[in-house]
């Protein structure tokens, strides 16, 4: 099936992998259950977060948590590499993640699927603008504009 939003597992590895992902998800807690005031989820809502492994940033922990809940997100990061920034937002239906890759000057969008617990779709790559690059690169280097 063509479409703007694609399932990453199906796109790169065929349906076998997708089926495996669905089985693994059965044991995961629902995303919405952690969406309470003061939780990591509410702190991450509508934020753009630095993803840095050493020392681990909030965005890194957030990406790790989300990758456990959404294995295809983890698979995407494993295949494409760790993004430099993670943006997160959502509404009552879906959650959205934007993954910024500064070196490639590209970003990918990822969203959850209502009524398909634990599954996600991707779109992109989107080219990021020079302004976005400058701003995010400045934050990454600790020199915000």
């Amino acid at each position, binding site marked *: *099936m*063509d*479409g703007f939003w694609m399932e990453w597992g199906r796109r790169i590895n065929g349906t076998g992998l997708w089926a495996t992902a669905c089985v693994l998800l059965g044991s995961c807690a629902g995303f919405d259950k952690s969406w309470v005031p003061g939780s990591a989820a509410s702190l991450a809502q509508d934020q753009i977060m630095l993803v840095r492994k050493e020392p681990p940033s909030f965005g890194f922990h957030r990406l790790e948590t989300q990758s456990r809940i959404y294995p295809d997100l983890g698979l995407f990061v494993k295949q494409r590499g760790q993004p430099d920034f993670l943006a997160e937002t959502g509404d009552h239906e879906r959650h959205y993640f*934007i993954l910024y890759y500064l070196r490639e000057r590209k970003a990918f969008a990822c969203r959850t699927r209502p009524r398909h617990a634990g599954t996600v779709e991707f779109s992109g790559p989107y080219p990021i603008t020079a302004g*976005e690059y400058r701003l995010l690169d400045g934050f990454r280097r600790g020199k915000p504009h």
Partner: protein
Amino acid sequence: MAACLVPACSVEPVADPRVPGPAARRIVTQRVSAVVVTERDDLSRWMNRGFAVSNAPGDADGGSATPISADGYFLTADHVLARMEGRNVFVIYGRGARLAPVKARVVWRSGGADLALLHIPAKTPDYYRWSSPDRWLPEGSGVIHGGIATGSKSESGKLGTSLAPEARFTGNRKFKIDIPLQPGDSGGPVVDAHGALVGINSAVEFLVPMETAFFVDSEACRPNTRRIESVIQMDRARNNRPNPAVE
């Protein structure tokens, strides 16, 4: 009562995996239509110059139109007509290879559904048939759109919302498609793999964390098809026009 409830309670089937192919795209190409709202009383000069941008009405608002009968009825998005007060509404419909603007009459509008029904006094032999109102349109079904801005070049997509069979009291239903629309596509058709009309393009949603806009979904609306048909029949009766289906 039971007959009204049964369609909504039936079990949603699996989506049709078929992607709309060349036959569906041909149907869309044959029916490409536009709406122009302008102070100008006559668009023939613009038309005679091949719709050159240099000669386009400077005040024009525009969008797409969707022919739904053989006798000149079109659906469009209501917001395309937002500034129609005191201006003329034209529908540009292809007659063979030749596009012709014809002044249109607004028959019915729904701001909430973002739908409007127009009529032009012309024959429109290439028109859309609705996808069956008695069948499910499951989420994931393959669709294309026929808006004038990007319909001819956009890839196929899929329904992001399931549409249950239509019951008597089913209202206008908004649904999502994962095809990015652009200005000008509003009012154009969303078409399934068989070339049947699913609904009418309405809006597009983006996430903009900084400068780059990330496409989320486009929105379209499917009216109660039987109710639209009855509006058309009433309009024909008011204007003493025979139903082309029973001519």
